[in-house]
Structures are given as structure tokens and as C-alpha cells.
């Protein structure tokens, strides 16, 4: 069956406005978490006063009219997709053989709230006619599809924090089935607003280490107290290997296999032993035709919640073992929700390319429940051939992706 190769990467994240700056900062162990200075932090007396905000304002990277017609979540999706498309050399593909799959966890919440304020304060006629296309969760995918003229299908998987990874999994399946030749796939999120911070905080899911923003996101650390909300987008150009070869495209890696499962356990709590997560990883290895011993690196989901990190560590040990070199990028990036799997998948591809695993920030005192080889302090050089990226989402969604070097 056809292989799926990666020919383009694009991103805008709390660490940088593109892939190169994001990867450099991740390798260097820099943090994207900052103190929030918005007036609403005090107005609502939010217990969470930190977030991982975009390094480059998306509206500054777009023509003015496009920026005003697109929700921030749609803006980041298009910015990342344009970079990935350029990186891939703008493939000449029949529009009917080009598809887009961009997931989001929340979608256009900024637009929904902003327009509701206008409705409440100024009445119906002040509501923008663009409200619905800006808030709909398929908006990011649809705008990327329009931008590229894709006519082979535009899809928007919604699986909370696994959305971006699920998008890549769906793209892989479409390419393997031969439905299309090229898929532009990834995830986008931009919802650092009072209601999301308040809602997650009420779940007691977020770090309140407000005095030390850069030290707040602590995956696998014994003193972790929850995740830090981030925003951004990651997009890849994926192609059928034969198609990429025929057009002489440069391959940056392969998406070798995908695995998905659902916990069937609780609407938000992960199954504590990581059984569903482990099944997703095992399924991904199976579809890639690889053995657990082949996996040299795991890019963990590890959001720094007390329960989630331990469950994932158990899943990794069961499905892969303890030989793989693990990193948890959310220590630096924060949690990009529906963009997380895509951005972190991209980090997997670059780790394989460069033979470097970035450090897990703020892991100073490993939770004794976690028995894995996790990179801390500074990046580790290691020869790699295959890597796994985990993503899990509220609702019990588990997605594992296996990447291999080009």
C-alpha cells in the first residue's frame, strides 16, 4: 500500500511565528508562557493569570481585510498552511486531488463572545454578517481550503485536544485509500479568553503558578498543578509517496502509521491506567508495520495535570517500553488544545530529521509514578528512525501517530 510522506511544515506558536523559530526555541529550552496583562484578569478575579500567547500576532502577518474577516483561530490556520504549502514547493496538483483536514478543539470562541457583546450592547444590526463563518469550527479548514483551491474535500475533525492529531490521522487514511494525492492537514486554536480560562480553572485542570509563568507548565514533575493554556497552529503537507516522487518533492519524513481509540470511561478524566491510550499507540505501531523496539522517541501529550501524565506514562511503558527517549513539549509551548497534536507531530518530524530531542521544561523532580527516560535540562542528541506522538482529548479520544525519517 502507498506510503504517506511529509513534504511541507508550517506553524505559528507561542515560541515563534514559523517552524524554524519554533523549533529553535524548543531545542533551546525556551518558554512561551507569559503573565496575562489584560484588564479582564482582574475584573473576573481569575485564578489563572498566565498563558502561552502567540509569539507573532497573526493579524500582523495577514492583509488587513483578511484579518478582519477571519477569526483568530482561522488566521493561525491559514498562516501555518501557507508556510507548509510554500515549504512543500506549492505542489501542482489537480484541485480535485487536493484535500484539507484541519481540526480545532474550540473554534471561533472569540468571535462568538465578541458578537454576543455587540448584540447585547448595541442590538441586532451591529452583529457582523460574518459571525457564523467566523465562529464555525470548520472555519479554519474551510479557509485553508479556499486559500489553496482544494476541491477534494475539506474536513474539520473535532476531538478536543486530540483534534490536530486526528486531522493527521484522517489525512493518512485518505491518502492510503488513494482518495486524493495531497492533503494539507493539522490543527488550529486561539481561545485565550476569560470563559475558557474560567471553565478550565473550575475543572481544577490549570496551573495557578501565576508568579512564575515560565516554570508553571511542569509535565511529569511531582509538583505539577495543571496545564497552561496556549494558542497556535501546526500544519503539514502530506502526499502519496508516488505523487511526491513524480514531482521531485523533498521528503522531510513519513507519517508511517496512525492509531485511534476511545476510553469509554469518563467525559474528561483519562482512564487512569492508560489502557485506551496504549491501544492507540499499539494500533499505530501495527499500521506502521513496526515493533515497539523500533521506536526511539516519544513526544508525549503530558499536559502536566496530576492524573493525565501518570496514565500516559503507563500507556507508553506498556505499548512501547522504557527504552524510548521521551520529551513533553507542553512545558515550553503550553497546551495548544486542538493544535497540540499537529505542532507536536511537527516537532517529531524535526527531531527525526535532526537527531535531537528537545528538553522537557520544568521537570526537576520526576513523579515516582513515571518510569521513563525523559529528556530534561538541555536537548539530547540521539540517532532516531521512528517516533511516536501521543494526543488525548476530553471525551476520551486517543490518537497516536508514528513518524519515521525520510
Amino acid at each position: 500500500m502507498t506510503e504517506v510522506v511529509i513534504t511541507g511544515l508550517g506553524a505559528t506558536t507561542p515560541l515563534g511565528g514559523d517552524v524554524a523559530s519554533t523549533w529553535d526555541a524548543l531545542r533551546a529550552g525556551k518558554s512561551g508562557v507569559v503573565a496575562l496583562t489584560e484588564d479582564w484578569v482582574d475584573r473576573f478575579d481569575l485564578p489563572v493569570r498566565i498563558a502561552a500567547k502567540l509569539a507573532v500576532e497573526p493579524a500582523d502577518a495577514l492583509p488587513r481585510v483578511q484579518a478582519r474577516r477571519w477569526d483568530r483561530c482561522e488566521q493561525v490556520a491559514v498562516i501555518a498552511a501557507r508556510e507548509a504549502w510554500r515549504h512543500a514547493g506549492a505542489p501542482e496538483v489537480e484541485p480535485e486531488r487536493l484535500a484539507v483536514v484541519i481540526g480545532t478543539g474550540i473554534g471561533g470562541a472569540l468571535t462568538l463572545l465578541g458578537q454576543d457583546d455587540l448584540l447585547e450592547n448595541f442590538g441586532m444590526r451591529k452583529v457582523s454578517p460574518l459571525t457564523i463563518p467566523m465562529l464555525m469550527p470548520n472555519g479554519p479548514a474551510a479557509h485553508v481550503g479556499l486559500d489553496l483551491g482544494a476541491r477534494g474535500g475539506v474536513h474539520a475533525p473535532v476531538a478536543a485536544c486530540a483534534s490536530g492529531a486526528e486531522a493527521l490521522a484522517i489525512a493518512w487514511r485518505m491518502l492510503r485509500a488513494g482518495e486524493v494525492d495531497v492533503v494539507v492537514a493539522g490543527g488550529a486554536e486561539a481561545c485565550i479568553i476569560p470563559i475558557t480560562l474560567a471553565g478550565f480553572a473550575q475543572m481544577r485542570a490549570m496551573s495557578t503558578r501565576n508568579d512564575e509563568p515560565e516554570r508553571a507548565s511542569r509535565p511529569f514533575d511531582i509538583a505539577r498543578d495543571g496545564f497552561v493554556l496556549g494558542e497556535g497552529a501546526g500544519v503539514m503537507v502530506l502526499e502519496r509517496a508516488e505523487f511526491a516522487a513524480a514531482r521531485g518533492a523533498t521528503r522531510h519524513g513519513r507519517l508511517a502509521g496512525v492509531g485511534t481509540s476511545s476510553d469509554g470511561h469518563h467525559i474528561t478524566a483519562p482512564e487512569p491506567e492508560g489502557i485506551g491510550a496504549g491501544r492507540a499507540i499499539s494500533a499505530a505501531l501495527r499500521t506502521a508495520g513496526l515493533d515497539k523496539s523500533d521506536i526511539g522517541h516519544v513526544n508525549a501529550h503530558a499536559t502536566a495535570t496530576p492524573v493525565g501524565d501518570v496514565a500516559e506514562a503507563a500507556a507508553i511503558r506498556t505499548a512501547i517500553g522504557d527504552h524510548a527517549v521521551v520529551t513533553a513539549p507542553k512545558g515550553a509551548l503550553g497546551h495548544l488544545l486542538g493544535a497540540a497534536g499537529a505542532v507536536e507531530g511537527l516537532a517529531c518530524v524535526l527531531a527525526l530529521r535532526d537527531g535531537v530531542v528537545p528538553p522537557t521544561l520544568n521537570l526537576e523532580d520526576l513523579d515516582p509514578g513515571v518510569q521513563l527516560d525523559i529528556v530534561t535540562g538541555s536537548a539530547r542528541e540521539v540517532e532516531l528512525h521512528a517516533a511516536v506522538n501521543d494526543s488525548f482529548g476530553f471525551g476520551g479520544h486517543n490518537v497516536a501517530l508514528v513518524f519515521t525519517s525520510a
Partner: protein
Amino acid sequence: MTNEEILRGLAEIVNEVAGVETSEITPEKSFVDELDIDSLSMVEIAVQVEDRFGVKVPDEVLANLKTVGDAVDYVAKTI
């Protein structure tokens, strides 16, 4: 208010909403076919015209404002 002044004000609105250069916004131009303005942006333009010139632009009127000149004439006679 002169037709010139209405045209200038309308051009600023169209530029703000749709990004069309004000120099291109001349009376004979069609909003949809020549200035490439979609129906969603036309609704935004209508709301801003109402605010700026203090006129009502009902949907049945909006549907018949094909050119920039149509809009200027409507504002001029309604104002």
C-alpha cells in the same frame, strides 16, 4: 451634502470593509462584478452607510444598489 462628499464617505466605508482602494471606487463601478464585494460585505457596508449618513437601507433597497453610483444617488435623495 454633495454627491462628491457622499462618494468620498462611501469609498472610505468600502475600503474599510473590503479593502478596495478608494481611487477605484467610482460611480460606474459594480459592487459585485467589478469591485468583487460579496453579499456579506454588502450587509456590513449597508450598516455603516446607515450610521454615517443617517439613512435607512432596507434589504429590498440594498438588493437594487448594483453600482457605487446607485448607492450615492440613494443616499443623496434619502438623506
